[in-house]
C-alpha cells in the first residue's frame, strides 16, 4: 500500500494504462483506507465504485479508474447527499451533478462523499452537522473549510484526489492548511449543475490534489472542452487545459499586493514563507513588482453581504415539503419554522438572517447595492493590475491550521480566514493555492491568480514553483508524529 500511496493520481492512472495496476486494485486499496478514516473526512462510502453510464464508458479512460473523493455538496443519483446539513438527512438525489458525471465518464469513479461545513458555510469544517474534520498534519487542528473533508482525505492518503467547491476560499484555504494544491477555476469554467448552491454567483467546483499535475488533469476533464447546457452561466473554455511542464518563470511579471500580503491579519510565519516564495519566483526568472488592488480590503465586507443574500434565497427550498427533514405539527407555518429551526445549524441561520436583512425593502441599496458596486470595483482593480503583470500572488490563508474550537465562538475571526481569497472570488478569477513551505511545522499556501481563463498560465507557474519549493505532500512520507490514525 505504501507504494501506492507514493503515487500521485496522474502517476497511478499511468500505471493503470501501462497495465501495472488495475483500477479495482486501486479502488479497493483506497476504499480500505477510507473505511479506516478516523479524521471525520468521509460522510459516506459506497460498497462498490458506481458504474458510469454505459455510453460514456471507455476501455481506456484517461483518468485510469483512479477513484475520486467527492465533497458532499455534489448530488449523486441514489447516494446520500447532505451538504453537511441535518436538513438533508436521508436525501438521495434523483440525478447526478455534471462534474461528478464528467469525471466518472473520464475514468475517475466516486470513492465516497466527504465531510464539509454545512452548505459550504465555514472555514474550519466545524460547521458540519455531522462531525468536525481533523487535520492530518496535526489532529487537534482544523483542516480548513468548507471543503475540509476533501482536503483531509487527500492529505491523509485516504483518497488519491478530490473535488471541492469554492465560494470565497473553500478550496484554496483547506488546500493551504493541509499542504495540498487547490484550484478555483474561472467562474463559469466548470458546470454548477448538481452542486448544491451556497452563493450562486461565486460558487465554483475545482480539484484538491496532491500536486499541480493532478489538478490540471482533473480540471481538463471538468472543463471537458464544452460548456454544460444545464448551467446557463457556464461558458466554453477558450482553450484546452494543458498538463503543465514549465520549470521556470522566464519573463513572467508577478504582482504582489501589499493590501493583502502586508495586512495586519497575516501571521508572521506565513509572511516569512510568502517572502521566501517571492525570492524563489525571482530565482526562476520571474519579475516581482508591487501592484495595488485598492478595493480588495473591502472584499470581505462585500462578500459577507452578497454571499448571504444569495444563500438566503438558495436555502428557501429546504421547507420540509418535498425532500429532506420534515418537522412541525401539521400546520404550514409550523412546518416551515420547525423544519428550518431543527434542520439548519447556527452559522447557516446567521447567514440566512444576514442575507434576508440585506435584501429587505429599504436596506437593499445600502447593503446589496453597495456590495455589488464594491464587487465591480474589485474586478476593475484586477483588470488594471493585469495590464501591468501576468499573475498576482498572495498568501492563501492569513494563518496556518488553527486549533479545533479556537475560532468557533468568534465568527468574525473565522471570516478573516478568507481575507486573501475572497477578492478573486468576487472578480470571478481563477486562483490556485500550492504549498510553499512550513510554519510551526504546518503547511503554508501560496495563492497564484491570473486573468479569467488563464488557468494554463497559472498552472504552468504553479508547476515551476512546486518543483522549486520541493514540498513533499506524500502522505506516506508525512512525519510519523503527524500521521493520522493515532
Amino acid at each position, binding site marked *: 500500500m505504501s507504494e501506492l500511496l507514493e503515487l500521485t493520481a496522474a502517476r497511478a492512472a499511468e500505471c493503470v494504462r501501462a497495465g501495472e495496476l488495475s483500477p479495482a486494485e486501486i479502488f479497493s486499496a483506497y476504499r480500505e483506507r477510507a473505511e479506516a478514516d478516523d479524521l471525520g473526512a468521509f460522510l459516506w462510502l459506497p460498497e462498490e465504485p458506481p458504474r458510469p453510464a454505459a455510453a460514456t464508458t471507455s476501455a481506456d479512460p484517461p483518468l485510469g479508474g483512479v477513484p475520486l473523493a467527492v465533497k458532499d455538496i455534489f448530488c449523486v443519483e441514489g447516494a446520500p447527499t447532505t451538504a453537511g446539513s441535518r436538513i438533508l438527512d436521508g436525501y438521495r438525489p*434523483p*440525478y447526478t451533478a455534471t462534474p461528478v458525471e464528467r469525471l466518472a465518464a473520464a475514468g475517475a469513479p466516486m470513492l465516497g462523499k466527504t465531510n464539509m461545513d454545512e452548505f459550504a458555510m465555514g472555514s474550519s469544517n466545524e460547521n458540519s452537522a455531522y462531525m468536525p474534520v481533523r487535520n492530518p498534519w496535526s489532529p487537534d487542528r482544523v483542516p480548513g473549510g468548507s471543503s475540509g473533508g476533501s482536503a483531509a482525505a487527500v492529505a491523509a492518503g485516504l483518497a488519491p484526489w478530490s473535488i471541492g467547491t469554492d465560494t470565497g476560499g473553500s478550496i484554496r484555504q483547506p488546500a493551504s492548511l493541509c499542504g495540498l494544491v487547490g484550484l478555483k477555476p474561472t467562474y463559469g469554467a466548470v458546470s454548477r449543475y448538481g452542486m448544491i448552491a451556497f452563493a450562486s454567483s461565486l460558487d465554483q467546483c475545482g480539484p484538491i490534489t496532491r500536486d499541480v499535475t493532478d489538478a490540471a488533469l482533473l480540471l481538463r476533464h471538468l472543463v471537458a472542452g464544452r460548456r454544460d447546457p444545464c448551467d446557463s452561466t457556464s461558458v466554453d473554455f477558450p482553450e484546452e487545459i494543458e498538463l503543465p511542464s514549465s520549470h521556470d518563470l522566464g519573463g513572467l511579471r508577478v504582482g504582489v499586493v501589499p493590501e493583502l500580503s502586508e495586512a495586519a491579519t497575516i501571521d508572521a510565519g506565513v509572511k516569512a514563507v510568502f517572502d521566501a516564495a517571492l525570492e524563489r519566483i525571482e530565482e526562476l526568472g520571474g519579475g516581482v513588482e508591487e501592484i495595488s488592488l485598492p478595493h480588495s480590503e473591502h472584499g470581505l465586507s462585500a462578500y459577507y453581504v452578497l454571499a448571504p443574500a444569495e444563500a438566503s434565497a438558495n436555502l428557501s427550498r429546504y421547507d420540509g415539503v418535498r425532500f429532506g427533514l420534515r418537522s412541525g405539527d401539521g400546520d404550514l407555518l409550523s412546518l416551515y419554522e420547525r423544519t428550518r429551526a431543527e434542520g439548519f445549524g447556527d452559522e447557516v441561520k446567521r447567514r440566512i438572517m444576514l442575507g434576508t436583512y440585506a435584501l429587505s425593502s429599504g436596506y437593499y441599496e445600502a447593503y446589496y447595492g453597495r456590495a455589488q458596486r464594491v464587487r465591480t470595483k474589485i474586478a476593475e482593480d484586477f483588470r488594471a493590475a493585469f495590464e501591468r503583470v501576468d499573475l498576482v500572488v498572495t498568501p492563501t490563508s492569513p494563518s496556518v491550521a488553527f486549533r479545533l474550537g479556537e475560532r468557533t465562538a468568534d465568527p468574525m475571526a473565522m471570516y478573516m480566514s478568507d481575507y486573501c481569497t475572497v477578492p478573486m472570488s468576487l472578480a470571478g478569477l481563477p486562483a490556485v493555492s500550492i504549498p510553499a513551505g512550513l510554519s510551526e511545522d504546518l503547511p503554508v499556501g501560496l495563492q497564484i491568480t491570473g486573468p479569467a481563463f488563464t488557468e494554463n498560465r497559472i498552472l504552468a507557474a504553479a508547476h515551476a514553483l512546486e518543483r522549486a519549493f520541493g514540498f513533499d505532500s506524500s502522505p506516506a512520507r508525512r512525519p510519523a508524529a503527524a500521521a493520522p490514525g493515532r
Partner: protein
Amino acid sequence: MTTVTTTPTERAYEPVIGLEIHVQLRTQTKMFCGCALSFGDDPNTHTCPVCLGHPGTLPVPNAEAIHFALMIGLALECELAPRSIFHRKNYFYPDLPKGYQISQFDIPLWRSGRLGDVRVHRVHLEEDAAKLVHAGSSGRIHGAEASVVDFNRGGTPLVEIVTEPDLSSSEQAGEWLRLLRATLKRLGVSDVNMDEGSLRCDANVSIRPVGTATLGTKTELKNMNSFRFLERGIAAEVARQEELLRGGGEVEQETLHFDPRTGGLSALRSKEESHDYRYFPEPDLVPLAPTQAMIDRARTALPELPGARAQRLERELGLPGDVARLLAFRSELGDFYESALSADGATDPHTLASWVTVELVARLGDVDPAESPVAPEALAELVRLISARSVSGSAAKEVLDAMVADGGRPEAIVVERGLGLAGAGELDAVVDRAIEANPDAAEKVRAGTAKAMGAIVGAVMRETKGRADGGEVQRMVRERLGLG
C-alpha cells in the same frame, strides 16, 4: 374658468382602471426545464428535479417562450430592453418549490407599448406556480384539512402584461381585454382560456372626481376568471368606492377577492401579511439579450392582428364597425368570411358578413366554422342565390340548417327540397287567393293602411312555405288592388 363647489354626495366620479394580465404560453416545454406542459394530466406526472426545486438544479430559459414573448411585445408595439434581467421574487408557499419565483423586475423585456387606445406599461416573462388543492370546506390553505400540491403547472411559462390606468369603465375594460385576448389568440402563443386559467386578469381600480387629474387610492381585484366576472367585479368595486367617498370615508389600499356567487368583494390578505419580496437579480441566469436574428424571426412570425384586420374590413369592404370587430376578434370567423369572399368574387360582402356573424354563429355557437360541415364556398353560393332572389330569406335559413347538419351545396339542397322561389305563374294564383281570403285587409290596404298588407303577404308565405320573395308579393298585391 369657474369653480363649481360640490359636496361629496353630489360629486360625479370617474373610474380609473388598469389591468394586469397573466398569459400562460403554449410552448412545448416549461420555462426553465424540459418537462412538457400539461393539460389535465394526472398530478405530478410532468415534473423533474429542476421544476421540483431539487438541491443543485439550475434553470435554463426556454427559447420558444422567449420567441413568443418577443412576438407579444412586437404585437403590443412595445420598446425592447436590449438586456433584460431575471430576478428572484422571494416568498414561502408550498406552490413555489424553490421559495422564489423567477420573474422580471426593474428591467422587463418590454416597456411602453399600446394596444387600441390603451397604453401598455410593461411586458415580462416569468414562471407559473404549482397548483394547490385543499381538502375540506374552507377551500383555502387556512382551515383546510389537508392540502396537496400538483407540480404539473409549476414552471409553465407566463407573460405578464401590465397596462397604464387608461380604462374608465368596466365595459371598456372588458372590451379591451377581448381585444387583447383576440390578439394573443391570433399570435398563437396561448390558449387564452379564462376558465382554465391560461388567461388571468387582475384589475387596479380607483376613482376620482370628474375633471381632476390626480389618481385616487387604488385597490387590486383578483379572481375574475371570466369576462363577465371582470366587468361585474370592477363595477362592484367602483360602486363600493363611490359609496365610501360619498359617505365621507376613504378608500384603503388593499387586495380584494371577487366572489362570483355573491357578487361581493372581500379583502384577500391583510396588511400584516403583506410581503417584502426581497427581489434581487437571479444569479443562475445571464441577462436576456435578444439578437437581431431573434427579433427578426419574431417579427416574421407576426400575423395580421385583430385591430388591424377590423380596420381593414371596415375600410376596404365598408363593413359596419361592430361586424368588422366581431370578424376580426374571432379570427376563425374572419378567416371563414374571407375565404368565402375570395371563393366567389360576386358575393355581396355585407350580406355575407351578416350570414357569417348572425346566422352561422346562431347555429354554431363557439365552434370554429372551419370545423363544421359548412364549406366557405358553399356559404358564398348561398349568399349569391339570396342576392339573385333565387331563394327567399326564410328558405335560405332552411338551406343553411341543412348545410350545418350535413354539408352539401345550396343549389342542390334548394332543388332537392323544392325551396326555390315560387315563380310568377305560381304566385299569381296564390296572391289572388290570399286577397280573396282577406277582404278586410284588402280594403284597409286600399284605404292607405300599409300595415294591413301583412296579413295578405303572410297568407302567401304560408301557402308557399316561405318560398316567395316578400317584396315581389307586396308589389303584386298592390298591383291587383289598383295601387300600382
